[in-house]
């Protein structure tokens, strides 16, 4: 599903011409989508989503026709089709049932669901039932870790906290409950990212009633870009996408007089396992985010923002597009916004299931309609980004803080969090806890408080085995580190990093080798494949860990893991390689006795452990 942009120049089916496979209507929609971008190729992912929705899968004939519509060669399209997990170049079932088997869902029994579905349908992975109705696939993190295990059918809204009964109902064609993720502002916390508990602020009138878009008006009608950046810098806002760079400083990197357009690229590709926060903003508070986008566009002297949203997010996408339509209708986006004489546009592109597109230059490549392979630096995006123009990439949550900072001032913002990690953030907590979900809390909140108080403690009161503090890219911690505070400095001192603030808790039933294996499988699946060490190293770890898990490991394999991490850290175009090495290396080092037991006992010594 691709929703038409409110300001799109509509191409009629007659004008789009007759095709061989695609319907005239679809050709017209693809040509309309094409008009949203400075370069036709940027409409490629959207075009493929639409074509797949109509045709079921992307056959060679479809590839040829899409190529022709976007002035591309078939090979340029096929490379993209083959790269992105959401695109199918062979038939899948009419209902393609995808079960997330990444760490948070795996901890909650995802493997059982996959097995149940396959057994029930008599399928092996990759097969389609004879009647063409069903196929089953495993997917890496769907971004709903707090309600795992999660199932998605085609591109429909998720089935959260899925059970075997849900699978049965699904296969019987019955309705399946769609339970919502928990996302709360705990009592005593002054929340500003999420609306008050129980309230949804999706309609623009509700948002405007709270003073919404007033700061966007001020930014466009009254403020100079430098002044905006200055306030945000003074507030100490650090990016919420994982790296924690100071947002105001990043905006300052943009050239003042580039002589060509500048762009704000918004990273909504949230796919780091353990992370499921940005989705909450879009589902419940999309306008505050959009206001942040409008302010961000102004702050970097741009006239357009492009939002890259992960393809699996069906509901968030719909809410976002509704919000954009409402905001255009009010004149908050478009030409001559707030009487400034300037234009401010916002567009949305949907990803197609590749984690690497959350890396800023991988995302830019993907937005240009290419494989999401990160770019070597130099050049940096601030000089040469989207379509070769100066570009700032900001995380979706980061921008959602901005209207509040402008409204309430830097000092108000700095009063939250710690000295160097200011403001609230959305902590996601998943795995073996009683109340997994997203909680808006100040940075620096003790991890113990999040786990024990907000998430209701560990399931069945069991002791903790391991904690991943900020998405699986961040080094795992042993249970004794639970008293660390969740801010950049404290976590660094504890031997890890804040990342996206997505906490995954594993209780003492958990086999660390299996946990490392699931994470290694993820990185192996998601490496783009450019850099030697990452392409080969991630697969190397996966296969080696699988062997150890199976009971065929040797002690020297542990030294090999250690040594291969040195090849992978800091050695590649982007940080995925580092993340894969940190994951494997830290699990092995911090749980070495468990790894050794696996080797000595020739199998898993954790009888109650989750299945990988």
């Amino acid at each position, binding site marked *: 599903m691709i929703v038409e942009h409110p300001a799109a120049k509509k191409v009629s089916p007659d004008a789009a011409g007759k095709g061989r496979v695609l319907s005239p209507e679809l050709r017209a929609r693809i040509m309309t989508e094409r008009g949203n971008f400075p370069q036709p190729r940027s409409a490629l992912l959207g075009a493929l989503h639409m074509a797949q929705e109509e045709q079921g899968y992307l056959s060679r004939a479809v590839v040829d026709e899409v190529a022709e519509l976007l002035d591309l060669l078939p090979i340029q399209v096929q490379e993209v089709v083959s790269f992105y997990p959401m695109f199918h170049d062979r038939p899948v079932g009419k209902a393609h049932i995808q079960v997330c088997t990444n760490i948070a869902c795996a901890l909650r029994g995802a493997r059982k669901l996959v097995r149940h579905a396959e057994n029930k349908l008599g399928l092996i992975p990759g097969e389609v039932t004879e009647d063409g109705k069903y196929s089953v696939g495993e997917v890496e993190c769907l971004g709903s870790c707090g309600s795992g295990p999660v199932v998605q059918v085609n591109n429909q809204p998720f089935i959260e906290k899925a059970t075997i009964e849900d699978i049965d109902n699904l296969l019987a064609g019955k309705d399946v409950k769609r339970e919502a993720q928990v996302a709360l502002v705990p009592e005593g916390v002054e929340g500003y990212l999420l609306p008050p508990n129980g309230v949804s602020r999706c309609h623009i009138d509700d948002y405007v009633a709270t003073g919404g878009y007033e700061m966007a008006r001020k930014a466009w009608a009254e403020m100079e870009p430098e002044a905006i950046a200055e306030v945000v810098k003074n507030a100490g806002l650090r990016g919420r996408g994982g790296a924690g760079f100071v947002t105001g400083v990043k905006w300052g990197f943009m050239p003042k007089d580039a002589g060509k357009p500048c762009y704000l690229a918004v990273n909504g590709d949230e796919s780091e396992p353990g992370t499921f926060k940005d989705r909450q903003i879009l589902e419940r508070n999309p306008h505050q985010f959009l206001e942040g986008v409008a302010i961000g566009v102004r702050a970097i002297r741009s006239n357009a923002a492009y939002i890259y949203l992960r393809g699996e997010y069906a509901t968030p996408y719909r809410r976002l597009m509704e919000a954009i339509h409402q905001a255009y209708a009010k004149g908050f986006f478009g030409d001559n916004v707030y009487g400034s004489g300037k234009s401010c546009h916002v567009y949305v592109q949907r990803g197609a299931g590749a984690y690497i597109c959350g890396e800023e230059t991988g995302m830019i490549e993907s937005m240009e309609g290419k494989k999401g392979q990160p770019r070597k630096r130099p050049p940096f995006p601030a000089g040469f980004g989207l379509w070769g123009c100066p570009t700032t990439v900001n995380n979706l949550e980061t921008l959602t803080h901005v209207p509040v900072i402008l409204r309430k001032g830097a000092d108000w913002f700095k009063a939250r969090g710690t000295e160097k990690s200011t403001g609230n953030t959305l902590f996601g907590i998943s795995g073996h806890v009683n109340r997994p979900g997203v909680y808006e809390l100040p940075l620096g909140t003790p991890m113990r408080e999040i786990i024990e108080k907000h998430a209701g403690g560990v399931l069945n009161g069991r002791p903790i085995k391991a904690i991943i503090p900020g998405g699986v890219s961040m080094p795992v911690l042993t249970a004794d580190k639970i008293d660390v505070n969740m801010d950049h400095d404290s976590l660094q001192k504890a031997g890890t990093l804040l990342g996206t603030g997505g906490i995954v808790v594993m209780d003492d039933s958990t086999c660390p080798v299996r946990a490392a294996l699931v994470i290694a499988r993820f990185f192996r699946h998601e490496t783009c494949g450019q850099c030697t060490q990452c392409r080969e190293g991630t697969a*190397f770890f996966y296969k080696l860990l699988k062997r150890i898990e199976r009971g065929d490991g040797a002690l020297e394999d542990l030294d090999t893991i250690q040594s291969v991490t040195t090849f992978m850290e800091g050695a590649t175009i982007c940080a995925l390689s580092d993340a894969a090495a940190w994951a494997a290396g830290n699990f092995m080092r911090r749980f070495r006795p468990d790894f050794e037991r696996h080797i000595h006992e020739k199998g898993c010594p954790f009888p109650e452990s989750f299945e990988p």
Partner: protein
Amino acid sequence: MPKITIDGREIEAPANAMLLPVALENGVHVPHYCWHAKLSVDGSCRMCQVEIEGSPKLVIACNTPVREGMVVRTQTPAVQNARRGVMELLLVNHPLDCPICDKAGECLLQDYSYAFGSRQTRTKEPRRKLQKRKEIGPRMILDQERCILCRRCVRFCREITHTNELGVFNMGDRSMLDVMEGQPLANDYSINTADICPVGALESKDFHHKLRVWFLKKTPSVCPSCSNGCNITVHHYRDRIWRMMPRRNDAVNESWMCDHGRLNYQQVGDETRLRQPQLRRTAKLQTVAWDEALGYVARTLRDTVRTHGAESVGVIASPHLTNEELFRLGQVVSLLGTKNVDTALVVGQGDNLLIKPEKAANARGARDMGLRPTAGGLNVAAMLEAAAAGKLRVLYILGSDVWKVADPQALCGALEKVGCLIVQDVFDSPLTERAQVVLPSLTWAEKTGTFTNVKGRVQQIHRAVAPRDEQPSDGEIFSRLLNQLGEGQWHFEATAVLEEIASAVPAYAGISFARVGAQGFALPESAGDAA
């Protein structure tokens, strides 16, 4: 010009240059796979990591701009560990089928493994299975298992030929190089991808399983197939050519050559080549000794000029001969006194890359050496007309290109009427069937000399393959004819003849083999091209 230090040595580097080419040009070998001098920087193989003072991580030399005062180290333990890592991981899935790989012996995977890799393997997992020996084009084979995904070939097809046949499909360790069905790697330059492939993933069908590369001897030369004059290296063994490869010359062919030129070496070793002079005493051509054949040619030419005048003799030169040979031929023509001299040149299709319309290596040289009609002389068409009218009694044709350029009817008419047809060529042809005398020619691969390319660049060719039975070169044939026609002792030694050219042909003033060197000598633009 920033000054940088590499391994303790101070080096002056061009501003804005990247570190890797600077290091390589200064003799510091930083290993690399994906980087290629003539392609855009890719930065993905990670083999060229080096240490830079002040940088917390190693950097890739191919994408690091030099800056003043930069201190670079290429041999530190961290660099060595990084290289060992890349090598170990590249080999994790490599099939290690070196015993049957054409690239063995000139493979960067082998060389760098030996130089920088680990001495043991730690992987116990099965290797990736992909397609082997896949025909991806009329002249190319792909082994996906050997591919290390450096994407040099992909960039070549994108940036050089703009044909985009190759792509990397899938993601991560499932990535594989391939073509699209129905879109084979069939461009005119496809075999260059085998040259730039650092491993044995892309192989030329022509060379596939022919010979181990370490047997090959290499002789620098120039491609004979068109007037671009691509610089090449002839790879030969036991007086046979096994393959030809482009030799880098930025003024001529960068690092490339076309497939047609590359494969156009078969004639050199062809068993059906003319090897002995032949004379038609009766109805049939008979093999004769060189002295007899040349004596007959000299006598016929002299007698005809004496009896019927110089204008009764016509000479059609070949643009495949060297400048030195053509110069000698010009002397023969002058001595005979005929103005009827021209060069038969096949003109076909060119492209915007290397292929030129003039389908001979030395068309420009033939013009420069005066093998074209002067005032009052006849060109090829006019000569044939004159012969058909019985006005031309002797026609001396070098090569067989005239057969491809002349009107067939006019040619047949002329050959029927002409009193004596002398043909000097490498192969039998419809021309030799009608000839009174047939003199065998040597090919470019058996000669030393110079060609002048279409842009007026004089370049050397060298004898790569020894001629059989001491067969004389065309230049020697002309010299011996001169000896018989006139007085004096003419020899043919290319170096000496080029000196004669230097003093006789103004545009070539001051030229010598030393000045031509390995990269050629550009004639002054004022020299102009008579074409």
